[in-house]
């Protein structure tokens, strides 16, 4: 399956380690964008340690005081709501909100 997992909190969701999918995308939204924009004690978030696609919602970064270029790893694609709609309809079949 092609599965998009929304991470909406700034802590590592327990389920994330377990979920498997042919194509897996992690979409950082709401407080999930802190994973994309901050290091803690110098370390990037463990949420970013998987070999999957990463996206962060631009509107939620900016609301919280970050700019799109503040993402800590270039593998994270910054997208807006428009891009998110396309992503869900074109690139993934199922979604999970954590």
């Amino acid at each position, binding site marked *: 399956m092609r599965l998009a997992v929304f991470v*909406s*909190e*700034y802590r590592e969701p327990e389920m994330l380690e377990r979920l498997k999918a042919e194509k897996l995308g992690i979409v950082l939204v*709401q*407080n999930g964008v*802190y994973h994309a924009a*901050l*290091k*803690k*004690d*110098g370390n990037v978030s463990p949420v970013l340690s998987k070999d999957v696609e990463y996206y962060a919602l631009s*509107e939620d970064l*900016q*609301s*919280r*005081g*970050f*700019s799109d270029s503040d993402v800590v790893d270039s593998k994270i694609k910054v997208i807006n709501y428009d891009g998110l709609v396309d992503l869900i309809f074109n690139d993934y079949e199922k979604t999970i909100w954590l």
Partner: protein
Amino acid sequence: MAIKKIAFIVEKLPYKSETSRLALTHAIASQTVEIHLEDGDNVEPVLAFVGDGVLNCLKNQKALDIYGVSSLEAHIKNALLLDLRVLVCKEDLEGFGLTEDSIVMDAEEIGGEVTTQVVPYEEIQQDLESADHLMFF
């Protein structure tokens, strides 16, 4: 004649729930509490941001432009404008790799005179001890 000190400690993130917003609006309400009290009585608030709560203080929050909801940044500026004591935990700020440059330190552009104080947690602990009441948000 008495002054009661209330510590408002914010450790939640800004936009997931209303928690930190309500901390700010209630702390600011101390400005009008006198009307309910005897002459000379008053409430003295202190606002402290700890843990993840320090992220409420980041500059350049665009929540109003994007979601139509006032930013925590704006609320903190209001608190400074009204001369509230605003403390930010130094260790937690540094843990996120942030400095005074990253956060709201003053409200000069709206006429505020006091500034945010970045202090070691130990000082915040002392405020918890000296406060009459604690409110954790």
